[in-house]
């Protein structure tokens, strides 16, 4: 890889020193096709992304709503595979060092072989892996491989997660804790629930890990709210994928709109400008 990846820890210290939160956009690798997808990631990086969440497309993504599922299907129809996904990461590493987290479903990891998947992830420049359907109970092999190759294993905390379970998750989780903002699957929402703010505060009281909040974060004010509530980063997915979906026929407009949206989202992480 051309760049030595910055760690999540370094990134969060960097943004915190500027009194900001981390802005973390998401894309499915290869959506709508390999080259356009890569151009979109470049747009993210040039317009304020502090880290990247890259999804590997899966045919049956039960934790995701229709927006991500459509993106997954577009990528698969455009010929994406796990190997091409890693090639995608290596291409990203040619132009940026910001942390890269993978969002995958466990069957993709299992089919490649857990050890081989983490090895390839490390060699491609991935910082962290989160498998959406891999809870603590089934994560022994993944954690072993993550430690072997120094790829951090990320877990989720949800509104239904008990305090006792939060402690266990915090002990095993590395890099950052992914806080699921909503009761449900991914997808843009109109309003942020007050329970999201309560969850961030509850999780904060159990761990010193950086907290990145995702699921339903779709407007600058959502970003403002979660950062103000104590989160360290905001992950924005479906709202960006909506822009891709709506502009499939005009890629220049797509990239321009994504650039403008990213700038607004990044701006919304700047705490000294915020009132909550």
């Amino acid at each position: 890889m051309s760049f030595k990846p910055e760690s999540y820890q370094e990134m969060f210290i960097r943004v915190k020193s500027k009194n900001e939160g981390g802005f973390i956009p998401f894309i499915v690798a290869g959506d709508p096709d390999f080259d356009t997808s890569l151009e979109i990631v470049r747009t993210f990086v040039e317009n304020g992304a502090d880290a990247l969440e890259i999804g590997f497309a899966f045919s049956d993504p039960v934790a995701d709503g229709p927006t991500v599922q459509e993106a997954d299907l577009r990528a698969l129809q455009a010929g994406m595979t796990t190997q091409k996904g890693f090639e995608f990461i290596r291409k990203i590493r040619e132009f940026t060092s910001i942390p890269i987290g993978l969002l995958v479903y466990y069957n993709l990891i299992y089919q490649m072989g857990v050890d081989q998947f983490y090895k390839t992830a490390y060699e491609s420049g991935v910082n962290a892996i989160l498998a959406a359907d891999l809870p603590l109970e089934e994560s022994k092999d993944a954690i072993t491989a993550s430690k072997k190759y120094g790829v951090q294993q990320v877990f989720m905390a949800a509104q239904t997660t008990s305090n006792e379970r939060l402690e266990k998750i915090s002990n095993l989780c590395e890099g950052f804790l992914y806080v699921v903002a909503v009761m449900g699957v991914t997808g843009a929402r109109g309003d942020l629930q007050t329970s999201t703010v309560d969850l961030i505060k509850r999780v904060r009281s159990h761990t010193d890990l950086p907290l990145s909040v995702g699921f339903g974060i779709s407007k600058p004010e959502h970003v403002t709210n979660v950062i103000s509530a104590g989160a360290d980063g905001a992950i924005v997915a479906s709202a960006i994928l909506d822009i891709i979906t709506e502009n499939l026929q005009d890629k220049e407009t797509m990239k321009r709109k994504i650039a403008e949206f990213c700038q607004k989202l990044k701006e919304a992480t700047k705490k000294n400008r915020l009132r909550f």
Partner: protein
Amino acid sequence: MINNGKFGKYGGIFVPELLIPALEELEKAFLKYKDDKEFNQELDYYLKEFAGRPTALYYARNLSEKLGCKIYLKREDMLHTGAHKINNTIGQGLLAKYMGKTRLIAETGAGQHGIATAVVGSLLGIPVEVYMGSNDVERQKLNVLRMELSGAKVLPVDAGSRTLKDAINDAFRDWTSSVENTHYLIGTTMGPHPYPTMVKHFQSIIGRETRAEILEKEGELPDAVIACVGGGSNSIGIFSGFVNDEAVELIGVEGGGDGIKTPRTGATLCKGTEGILHGSFSFVLQNNDGQISEAHSVSAGLDYPGVGPEHAYLHSSGRANYVAVTDKEALRGFELLSRYEGIIPALESSHAVAYAEKYAKMPENKGKTIVVNLSGRGDKDMFLVASEMGVEV
């Protein structure tokens, strides 16, 4: 979790974090009520008075004479709503009621599980919403109407292959948003722990009855038990009565579709490989990357690319044999039972009947005693069969 929900290495809980507490709650309630006197009294009452248990173990004299074996049919087709599915929906529906859940959701392929859930919702006064692939909605119009008449709302799913697996995906998504008041009433032995164990528990009545009935009629255990396998609930139910009797051959019959050497098949154990789908580690029809393939079978209940994890265990340990029967062969099974016994089987069960004929014709099996689980009746499939036969209805 109190138990890890594994059958050998298969099973487990591969779900998003949000669902873990709901599974823990369900496991706790299941372990509490499965041995609770009041719960079991109520369950027995409904199974007997509402569903119509016990079902007969019928000696199919004409078919036996034709095939040269003693063929018994476990008549789950005689149950209310027309299939074994009602055993599990009454069990889980009651459990949901005891847990204080105020809404039931379900997935359905052929429609039998959807109907069974709809009527149990009616019976217990709990609203029901059923996810169904839009292709299946089209294939099973009559069953959609039956669900709606029972007060259930049918939600067509247009994603993916528009069949059972996509209905399951959407039901999981719904449950992720509604775990606090909703019970997801899974219809087969797939899914995360505790579902495979719980569904087996509620379906094991088939095996207990069959064991007692065959001992009463024959004075000994059968040589073979044959049942169709989609997700695997009717088969695990009847197998459970004989799994510890090593001398009894257990045979699961998968939907072979156009044949297991073609891409159009639903034979997960015969053709699939190990993988994770819908919350458990089992066998899956998939490509080398782990992307799930679309399954095909003439029977909507068998075109599922996964299979319950206990079947994966019985397959890998060699305790049960799994075979595939093609669509054409299944249609022959459908006609065979209708013609010789006046019993029109569900297309799912027709796969088991078709394999029973093949099994009986093998010289080494001459004269053996075979139990075929007739998991459901074929009224629902008449339009489809008519179309296959070129008959206008």
